[in-house]
């Protein structure tokens, strides 16, 4: 059984102009011990997806099955028991920590709420252990978040997420606010923890090179929908959706050789408020035809084993044999 199964998940927000479709019919499954990368540009709904999965937001429709149980519609009281298994690491280590708590208190907080440690000594021991796990020196235990730099703050965020021995961690842009040399340290730490503790990650980011490095499978999102889904190794060799092509070619490569031919996208993201039932990428797509503009939203189809693409013309554009 997969650890997490998400089916037809929708998250709509009422705004003054109508309904904002932040997450629109997203489905995927995630096996234990794997990492699912979710990429897309700002406003594509990737953070909302993460928050909806861990139920910081109640979904508009759809199911989220964690170890077989539907947690999307479970009463809050019951979900409280499952919460320790599903944790989140937030993007901004400057904003996600209570400035009035010391490092020790911050890391102890989740365990205090869930009363997982019977005695004060046990709690202190566990905090020491966690600080050690994320390589925070003991001398920082009485410091406050503002006294630390971004990399160390993010380590506190990771220690808090680990405090309750979770099974699934949703990492929402955990390294975006960090400098590259520090970013690499935190990525290595996350990978080591996964190996040691058998963690499962949903890794949300806009950085394609980071997502390639850490993921087993990758979902590419555009305006609330999955446009392409494939194993990480495959996606960087064969990207079939026009948006994925453009996204990958837009990354500045830190080398003077084999620079990719850039596919420039025209225009900007269209509005996610009351979107029409057509391909949402049509307005920016170089391959768009009248049929794309007027047809229905393309379904996510399995074009090759484990490789899903939502595009009407995917076979045509990529000269692939017609699959049925």
């Amino acid at each position, binding site marked *: 059984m997969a650890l997490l199964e998400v089916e037809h998940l929708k998250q709509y927000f009422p705004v003054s102009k109508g309904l904002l479709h932040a997450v629109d019919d997203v489905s995927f499954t995630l096996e234990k011990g794997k990492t699912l990368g979710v990429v897309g540009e700002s406003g594509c709904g990737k953070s909302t997806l993460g928050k909806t999965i861990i139920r910081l937001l109640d979904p508009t429709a759809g199911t989220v099955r964690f170890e077989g149980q539907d947690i999307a519609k479970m009463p809050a009281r019951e979900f409280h028991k499952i919460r320790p298994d599903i944790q989140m690491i937030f993007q901004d280590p400057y904003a996600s920590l209570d400035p009035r708590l010391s490092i020790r208190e911050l890391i102890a907080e989740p365990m205090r709420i869930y009363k997982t440690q019977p005695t004060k000594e046990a709690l202190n021991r566990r905090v020491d252990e966690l600080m050690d796990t994320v390589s925070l020196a003991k001398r920082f235990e009485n410091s406050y978040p503002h006294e630390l730099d971004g990399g160390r703050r993010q380590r506190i965020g990771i220690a808090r997420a680990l405090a309750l021995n979770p099974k699934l961690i949703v990492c929402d842009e955990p390294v975006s606010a960090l*400098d590259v040399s520090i970013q690499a340290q935190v990525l290595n730490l996350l990978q080591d923890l996964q190996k040691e503790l058998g963690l499962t990650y949903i890794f949300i980011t806009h950085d394609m090179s980071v997502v*390639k490095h850490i993921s087993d499978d990758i979902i590419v999102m555009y305006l609330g929908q999955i446009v392409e889904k494939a194993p990480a190794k495959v996606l960087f060799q064969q990207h079939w959706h026009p948006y994925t092509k453009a996204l990958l070619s*837009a990354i500045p490569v830190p*080398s003077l050789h084999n620079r990719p031919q850039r596919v420039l996208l025209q225009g900007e993201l269209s509005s996610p408020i009351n979107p029409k039932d057509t391909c949402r990428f049509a307005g920016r797509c170089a391959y768009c035809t009248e049929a794309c503009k007027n047809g229905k939203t393309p379904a996510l189809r399995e074009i090759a084993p484990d490789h899903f693409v939502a595009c009407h013309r995917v076979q045509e554009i990529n000269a692939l044999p017609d699959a049925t």
Partner: protein
Amino acid sequence: MEKKTTPIAKVDDLVIHYETRDGVVEAVNGVSFEILPADTFGLVGETGAGKTTIALAMMGLLPYPPTHIIRGKVEIDGEDIAKKSKNDMRAIRGKKVSMIFQDPMTALNPVVGIGDQIAEVILLHERCTKEEAQKKALDMLQMVGIRPERYKDYPHQLSGGMKQRVVIAIALACNPELLIADEPTTALDVTIQAQVLDMIKDLRDRFGTALMLITHDLGIVADICNKCAVVYAGEIVEIGTVEDIFDRPQHPYTLGLFASIPSLDKDVERLQPVKGQIIDPTDLPPYCSFCDRCDRCTEQCRAADPKLVEVSPGHFVKCIFARKEAD
């Protein structure tokens, strides 16, 4: 335009300190470089390396106090800007040197229409009527790919990418000789970043503007620059052409930066980050400031501060292990 070989900007042994309650921040420590009229010069480094301080010094925009220029000078077009009066500096900024800031959301005036914000610069620097300035502003808007009917729009009506385009239009409105871009695309999405970078490249070529690009993204440097300097703790640790830096880097910090970036075309099991944290600029050692994070550090490194060594013509490395390149 005639070809000039005298540098448009010259920074010479610049040392800048900030005074704070926690002590003196040694932000820039003896930085020298030149930008020729045809150059696109990349300044790369991590947070707190002093990149923006260098740029602000070149614009004459450092707040004083708490900033003190301890030593060194900045020459724009052969003239020392420290000797200029406030009014003279106003004439230089926007006309000879312009700057694009990182965050387009805060660089624009929220209560003035975007077109008039462009016209404002033109009116300030050029002898023309309001109508002429507005017409030129309209041209600039079109040049950066914004439809003329949006002239009267306010900044909040535009997306991030469009705001950055307006900022670029303002910076280029008076055809400056040098454009300083401080992380111009960091706040933007990759596909929009690609659009804006292509536009900057195109305008640079069309106007023949020299460009100084401050970034932490080595990919952007490879994309757009011909020369580049790597900054660490307020010092240039390596400087040269992009070929020097990308194909033949020597400084351990430069090498560490490259090893920290996950590669798109190679599969790397584990990244090789630079160990430790970025050094505290209030407490710099008298020896090589990269010592504590360097794998090759020896006793000798802690004995004295290394000098920049020229390893091949124009390629300098600040490390005692720097070796001359065999031709």
